[in-house]
């Protein structure tokens, strides 16, 4: 019980720390260049990156269960193209919005089966999926962008109470997933499987079923992210954003999800995704070349992982 309490406090600490860092960053860059805090820029930070925060929710589930997924960037690219092709080929808009969720869940359920039933380590299974999905996407589309999207398709451009819809999705799905992880049997079994698979099995939790479910849910959430990604502009790029999977993994890990599994919340990963989007934007306002962004990301993830390991050694 006390162990869970320290874990809760520990991960809460990470979230409070993230809020402080985000506010400090906004204040610092805002003083340096007030245009950073303009409504336009804040909107573009959130709208352009909400899909990363959404995808990081699923990634957090995967990492908490003790696995990893490096194919999520490629999956988002493939699902976005599927959505675009459906709508430009005359299918109703709601089909183009929902199909990515179903296809994403189906593809990742297969990956989950490979991991759980065929004992292929998640890094190998998803590394292979990364090359299958990204290679397949470019072969299939030839790198052509999809244009001619019908009016009413751009879900990510909608607003509710003057707040862009991606922000609503980000907040709503974070709360939903937070509830799922904390208050349902499934959520607790994900933590159990991640912290000690043997003990989880002994208490009657099916390791295999849990892992397959986690990956299927992660795929469906990836579908939501893909729709937000596909509908933010008037065209859909049919190439996968380079290194997207790393940004998503970074958001999860920096958000306090322990790389050793079993610990973390989805709130932290959303905050970390916001932080990372803000850093990307502030580099521009601080006149730092955007080519340093990935190095900053690497330092962030490395520092968080090292701090996580040090904290674990201290608490035993």
């Amino acid at each position, binding site marked *: 019980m006390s162990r869970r309490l320290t874990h809760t406090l520990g991960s809460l600490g990470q979230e409070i720390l993230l809020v402080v860092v985000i506010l400090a960053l906004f204040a610092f860059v805002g003083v340096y260049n007030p245009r950073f805090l303009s409504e336009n820029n804040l909107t573009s930070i959130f709208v352009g990156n909400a899909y990363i925060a959404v995808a990081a929710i699923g990634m957090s589930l995967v990492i908490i269960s003790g696995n990893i997924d490096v194919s999520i960037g490629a999956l988002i690219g493939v699902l976005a193209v599927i959505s675009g092709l459906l709508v430009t080929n005359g299918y109703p808009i709601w089909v183009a919005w929902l199909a990515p969720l179903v296809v994403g869940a189906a593809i990742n359920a297969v990956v989950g089966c490979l991991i759980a039933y065929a004992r292929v380590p998640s890094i190998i299974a998803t590394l292979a999926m990364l090359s299958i999905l*990204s290679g397949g996407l470019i072969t299939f589309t030839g790198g052509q962008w999809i244009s001619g999207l019908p009016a009413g398709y751009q879900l990510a451009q909608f607003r509710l109470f003057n707040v862009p819809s991606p922000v609503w999705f980000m907040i709503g799905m974070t709360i939903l997933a937070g509830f799922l992880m904390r208050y349902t049997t499934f959520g607790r079994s994900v933590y159990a499987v991640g912290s000690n698979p043997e003990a989880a099995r002994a208490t009657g939790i099916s390791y295999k079923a849990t892992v397959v479910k986690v990956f299927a849910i992660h795929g469906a959430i990836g579908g939501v992210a893909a729709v937000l990604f596909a509908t933010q502009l008037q065209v859909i790029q049919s190439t996968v954003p380079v290194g997207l999977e790393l940004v998503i993994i970074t958001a999860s890990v920096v958000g306090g999800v322990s790389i050793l599994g079993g610990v973390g919340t989805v709130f932290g990963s959303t905050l970390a995704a916001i932080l990372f989007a803000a850093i990307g934007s502030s580099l521009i306002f601080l006149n730092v070349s955007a080519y340093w962004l990935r190095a900053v990301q690497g330092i962030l993830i490395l520092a968080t992982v090292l701090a996580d390991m040090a904290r674990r050694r201290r608490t035993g």
Partner: protein
Amino acid sequence: MTAMTRILIRHEAILGILFVVVLIAMASQNDRFLTTANLLNQARLMTEVGLIAIPMTFVIVTGGIDLSVGSILGLCAILLGVFWQNLGLPLPAAIGLSLAAGTAAGFANGLIVTRFRVPPLIATLATLALYRGLAEGISQARSVRGYPDWFAVLGRGDFLGIPTQLWLFALVAALGIFILRFTTFGRTTYAIGNNEAAAEFSGLPVERTKLLIYTASGFISALAAIVFVSRVSTTRSDMGSGIELEVITAVVLGGTSIFGGRGMVIGTLIGLCLMQILQNGLSLSGVRGDGTTVVIGAVLIVAVLISNLLSRFSSD
């Protein structure tokens, strides 16, 4: 021990038969395939992947993984260009410094894995982002060209009728075979992969061995960068991205268990050749480069599935 040898023989026998079958199939498909010129050219093309696959075999035998090799390659290629063109150093000195930088990058990986006990998967995923980020930041997306003619000998020249870099590769491969099979260091490598705790309690230098292996992985990745730059006579910051997938596929296809403790350099060499002729055959029959990455991904999954199946046979 005899059981282990039997599995290895069986895996390599299967691989050997597969190799011959693919060879015959490719040769009957296309007249241009089974020519000395084509085979030597293919050998030239696989050298960079092959070089890195040798230390990667050691890494995976210890039960670890190194995802950062492609980023080290990219970073060292960029540094070579910066040292030579921007700092005006003589090319041999630039090569030396670039090799030193790669070695340092590998050493840093080793330190993070051994001293801070970060799982190799996450440690090298973080440095994958960091090293690639450094390459992008340092280069600012500028490429370096105009290397002197003598430098091209390494990547495009011949020595005694055989591509120069193949001699280098043969040397590294022979060294790898010798160390893994006939030295105390090699036996320690297997012991770590079979049971790290037991190896530690038997007084084996676990930390030092792992540190050396990750350092060697960095050094050889830098060496591959030099060969790569010499072959294409230009440096770009995206060089070697995704090469870790090909390297890991070659190693796993060659019968090295992804769970550690089992594997041979000879197997890696066969896996490497099999992968290269598969790619070559596909591109000769009109499949484009992105299509072949789909095949590599599929081959990786099938290789792990077969390997799991074989180990289940032997344990029953």
